């Protein structure tokens, strides 16, 4: 089908008219018409700026699992890159390695979790060997993130914490979902300002 230029269009009879048809045929416009891409470019630029503003270079520190629903907290700091101990209602996992089942751990009376402690010691040794090879001793700060489900009881958490501390990971951080903002966010701002 032919492309028709926008504008006045006369009927077939008038097109052949000497009066009307003459003017209509005189102003012949080009058949080619450019698409206006300026709004598209504007939208792309705004989208790119928004995404870059929200871009996180560290990536995802925690792998979110459907078994673990994190509790919410308002007065939080930024999550640091560190080993993650995942505690769901079924199991305790470190770096993809299953340490034990929560049911079994609940029954035991030990203060620590030997398998977890051993695994963390191994990870610490690997970290130190790697950094010693690069002449970067003292880089180990003992940071560890605990990613636990909100329904887990403290009897498991305390054993995880004790094992972490025993293995040399003393700087324990509880991973949480950042709560909505509002009052908590304001408080955090005030606190930061007072620290400065």
């Amino acid at each position, binding site marked *: 089908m032919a492309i028709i230029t926008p504008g006045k269009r006369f009927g077939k009879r008038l097109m052949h008219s000497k009066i009307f048809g003459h003017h209509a045929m005189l102003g012949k416009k080009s058949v080619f018409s450019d698409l206006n891409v300026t709004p598209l470019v504007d939208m*792309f630029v705004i989208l790119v700026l928004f995404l870059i503003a929200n871009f996180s270079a560290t990536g995802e520190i925690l792998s*979110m699992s459907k078994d673990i629903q994190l509790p919410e907290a308002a007065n939080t*700091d930024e999550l640091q890159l560190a080993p993650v101990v995942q505690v769901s209602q079924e199991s305790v996992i470190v770096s993809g390695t299953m340490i034990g089942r929560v049911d079994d751990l609940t029954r035991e009376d030990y203060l620590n979790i030997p398998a977890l402690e051993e695994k963390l010691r191994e990870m610490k040794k690997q970290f130190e060997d790697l950094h010693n090879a690069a002449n970067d001793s003292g880089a180990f700060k003992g940071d560890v993130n605990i990613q636990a489900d909100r*329904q*887990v*009881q403290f009897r498991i958490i305390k054993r995880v914490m004790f094992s972490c501390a025993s293995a040399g990971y003393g700087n324990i951080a*509880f991973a949480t*979902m950042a709560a909505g903002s509002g009052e908590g966010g304001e408080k955090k701002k005030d606190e930061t300002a007072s620290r400065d």
Partner: protein
Amino acid sequence: MAGGMDLGGGGGKGKKPLDTTINLVPFIDLMAVTIVFLIMTAVWTQLGRLQVSQSGQNASEEQQQDPNQLQPVTLLITEKELKLSVGGAQLEPIPIVHDDKGKMDVQKLTDKLKELKTQQPEQNAITVSTEDNVKYEDLVRVIDTCIGGQFPSVSVSPAST
């Protein structure tokens, strides 16, 4: 024409049009690829951390430096109530109430902590003793409230010890 670029063609026989347009197609391609990359690498969940220490570690350093002035603040969490104590003197227990969504109501605790903070403005440390049956969600909520109540140095310990 507005926005046109003068090409300076002069007035020769082969007159060129004065207006020219920049080819935006490569720019749009670049933008499209960048947007796809940024969307794929975007982190949508907002996560945070609550820094805690185990009781007996560096949390109580400050209060050990000047024991005469600062009285240690301890908060015991049981399944049913919160028990605040300052320097060994226990305050009135706060019953734990959960709302419809299972969230602990911490308004009374916030008020108590504010009151304590006005009494001891230099005190930044608090020890949270927790019973075994307390849920992690409640513990996190209490720690969050303590940090929000200007007690940023929180140490956690089991209630039995």
